[in-house]
């Protein structure tokens, strides 16, 4: 039963155990020593991060390739629940290039956020609870990325969902935060239903829940298992296609792909460091990670593979358009996140499997990596701004470059990175993605290019309105009453340090030869650098940047004019194309009013009414039987007499 394979990677389990212990300790005893919980969490994450760096070093550098491939190492495996001899949920640790990369990303960003939060959340009433939840999230996310088993992934998938729920609803006395938390959980839960159904179908046909086994069995197009799964069909679509599409729905829900993206902007109600960790760098890329994990299987089914591509591309573009119109800085960042994840998704979608054809896959993972760094940086920078201004609205900001020099610098770096300006990290990853798209699908390439341009535009719109535009403090007080705490310093060191570290990461991450390490089939290839596509991509980004500079560098009325000129288009983009309203209509009006209310009515009146009817009939029968007992002798005699006759007739004629 117990298949524990010990090897020299078993120390990875401490990467998981440490956050879990921190969660338990701070969750149970944190109230007693609130100050310590932050330090405990941060130190714990630091150790975890160091361990995962060490693991990455060992894996890529020391262990190296075996037969030209990075081996998949099962560091630990333990049966957790056995459904049937072939279907077991194992809890284990699987190391392969993408999971090692994710380990690094998650622990790094998580450590940064822990560190940053010491300053940001200082003085918060539920400080220790915050750290407990943060550790819980880190634990779950780490558990997710090292899953050996699809069900293990589902479990941690749910756990990250619930930690996200708890953290978004951290300010639980704010109704908007409560609503956002519920929305985030319910929408992803709905998507997880797809994931679960997909798991059920996939596991039934592949007769395994183990990733390696599933991939191994499904990779072979001639194996009976694959043929069987591909032959069984429901509504004209093969079972395997169903399974993969359903699993993708799960991934799309977590990764906020259209049309399941509605929870992400609202989730910004949570504390900003949480948004940086969960809703920018780690949890939201879980969907990408899931598709990447099952990538060989997706390769087998072109329909599912294309679905990933189209959904990703559309989401990227769609979110970019909305991001251009939002005024809440965190929402702009949220839509930008969605857009960038769309990039990763369609990169997977356009990718092939073998050798250089797998450029999209590598590019996607590369972008995931770089994006985690610069988007975390953006969020943490935005957090610093919010910490300083006490407002989320762009209208309350402006001219902050003098007040917050460090933040200004790192924010600029991050913006340049996301806009794809060389030689920052975003340039490299984005360029690879666009190259992969160019090679496979020209339409997607065009969409990607337009999105890149839009990205640059809204990011600089954001940057310029915060740090340039108007002088600070705002004399006319744009709507929001800014508290008169202009005198306080930019941010404590605990907040600046993570910003600086992440900025450095953003600067240098692009030079990692990613495709050497992470590729679809495990072989290494050199991603060639083409000057023409790169120039096109950079040009697109620069167009966006200059447009933004033209419009927002100084306060003027050009933006209003343009938005007025765009009219309905602008309004609908500002209202996020009414997707929220549509959902609200479906849930409130249709499900609640047309299913739930009638169901409750039926239960009260029909089902319960039936039971009451039985009771009433019995009662009425006894009422009428009671009137037989009238006390009148003659009626008794009548009955007696009749009964006597009937009985005697029965005796005579029947028996």
């Amino acid at each position: 039963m117990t298949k524990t394979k010990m090897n020299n990677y078993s120390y990875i389990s401490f990467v998981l155990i440490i956050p879990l212990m921190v969660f338990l300790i701070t969750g149970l005893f944190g109230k007693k020593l609130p100050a310590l919980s932050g330090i405990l969490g941060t130190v714990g994450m630091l150790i975890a991060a160091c361990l995962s760096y060490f693991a990455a070093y060992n894996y890529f550098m020391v262990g190296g390739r075996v037969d030209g491939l990075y081996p998949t190492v099962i560091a630990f495996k333990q049966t957790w629940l056995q459904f049937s001899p072939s279907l077991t949920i194992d809890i284990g640790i699987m190391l392969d290039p993408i999971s090692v990369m994710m380990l690094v990303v998650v622990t790094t960003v998580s450590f940064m956020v822990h560190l940053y939060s010491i300053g940001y959340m200082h003085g918060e009433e539920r400080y220790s609870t915050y750290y407990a939840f943060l550790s819980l999230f880190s634990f779950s996310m780490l558990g997710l990325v090292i899953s050996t088993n699809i069900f293990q992934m589902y479990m941690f998938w749910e756990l990250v969902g619930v930690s996200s729920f708890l953290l978004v609803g951290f300010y639980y006395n704010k109704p908007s935060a409560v609503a956002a938390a519920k929305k985030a959980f319910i929408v992803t839960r709905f998507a997880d239903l797809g994931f679960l159904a997909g798991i059920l179908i996939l596991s039934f046909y592949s007769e395994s829940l183990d990733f390696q086994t599933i991939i191994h069995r499904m990779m072979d197009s001639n194996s009976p298992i694959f043929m069987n799964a591909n032959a069984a069909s429901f509504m004209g679509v093969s079972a395997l296609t169903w399974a993969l599409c359903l699993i993708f729905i799960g991934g799309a829900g977590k990764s906020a792909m259209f049309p399941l993206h509605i929870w992400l902007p609202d989730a910004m109600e949570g504390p900003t460091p949480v948004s940086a960790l969960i809703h920018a760098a780690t949890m939201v890329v879980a969907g990408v990670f899931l598709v990447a994990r099952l990538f060989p299987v997706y390769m087998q089914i072109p329909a599912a593979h294309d679905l990933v591509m189209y959904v990703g591309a559309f989401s990227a573009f769609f979110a970019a358009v909305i991001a251009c119109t939002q005024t809440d800085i965190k929402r702009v960042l949220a839509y930008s996140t969605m857009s960038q994840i769309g990039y990763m998704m369609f990169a997977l979608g356009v990718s092939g499997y073998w050798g250089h054809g797998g450029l999209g896959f590598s590019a996607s993972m590369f972008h995931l990596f770089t994006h985690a760094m610069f988007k975390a940086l953006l969020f943490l920078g935005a957090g610093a701004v919010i910490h300083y201004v006490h407002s989320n609205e762009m209208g309350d900001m402006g001219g902050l470059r003098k007040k917050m020099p460090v933040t200004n610098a790192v924010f600029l770096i991050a913006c340049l990175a996301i806009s794809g300006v060389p030689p920052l990290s975003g340039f490299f990853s984005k360029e690879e993605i666009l190259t992969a798209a160019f090679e496979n699908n020209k339409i997607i390439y065009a969409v990607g290019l337009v999105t890149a341009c839009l990205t640059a535009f809204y990011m600089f719109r954001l940057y310029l309105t915060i740090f340039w535009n108007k002088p600070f403090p705002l004399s006319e007080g744009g709507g929001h009453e800014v508290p008169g705490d202009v005198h306080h310093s930019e941010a404590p060191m605990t907040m600046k340090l993570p910003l600086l570290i992440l900025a450095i990461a953003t600067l240098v991450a692009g030079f990692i030869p990613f495709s050497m390490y992470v590729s679809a089939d495990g072989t290494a290839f050199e991603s060639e650098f083409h000057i023409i596509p790169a120039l096109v991509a950079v040009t697109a980004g620069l167009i966006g940047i200059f447009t933004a500079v033209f419009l927002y560098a100084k306060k003027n009325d050009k933006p209003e004019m343009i938005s007025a000129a765009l009219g309905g288009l602008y309004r609908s983009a500002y209202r996020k194309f009414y997707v929220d309203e549509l959902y609200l209509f479906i849930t409130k009006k249709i499900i609640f009013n047309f299913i739930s209310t009638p169901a409750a009515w039926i239960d009260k009146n029909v089902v319960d009414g039936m039971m009451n009817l039985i009771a009433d009939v019995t009662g009425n029968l006894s009422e009428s039987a009671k009137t037989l007992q009238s006390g009148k002798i003659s009626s008794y005699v009548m009955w007696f007499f009749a009964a006597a006759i009937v009985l005697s007739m029965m005796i005579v004629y029947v028996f």
Partner: protein
Amino acid sequence: MTEMKFILSISFALFFIGAYGFLTRRNMITMLMAVELMLNAVNINFVVFNKYLFADKMDGLFFSIFITTIAAAEAAVAIAIIINLYRKFKSIDEDDIDTLRW
């Protein structure tokens, strides 16, 4: 045999006349009279069967004697009850006396 069947039919007729009276009358004393008729019909039956079928025995006779006796006792008790009821309800119409219910 035909004679016996004839008398039996008379006794049945008397019995059902009594039953008819018992069912239609509402005055207790008349109901009691109807009961007496029925008892008599039964008596006739016993006597007839004794006479025609079991002439060597006297069981039928004794039955009728005992029934007569019991009828007397019954009448006495019934009348006592009737008088008591009359005192209580000022009526011996059985419709007025329905405390026997529930």
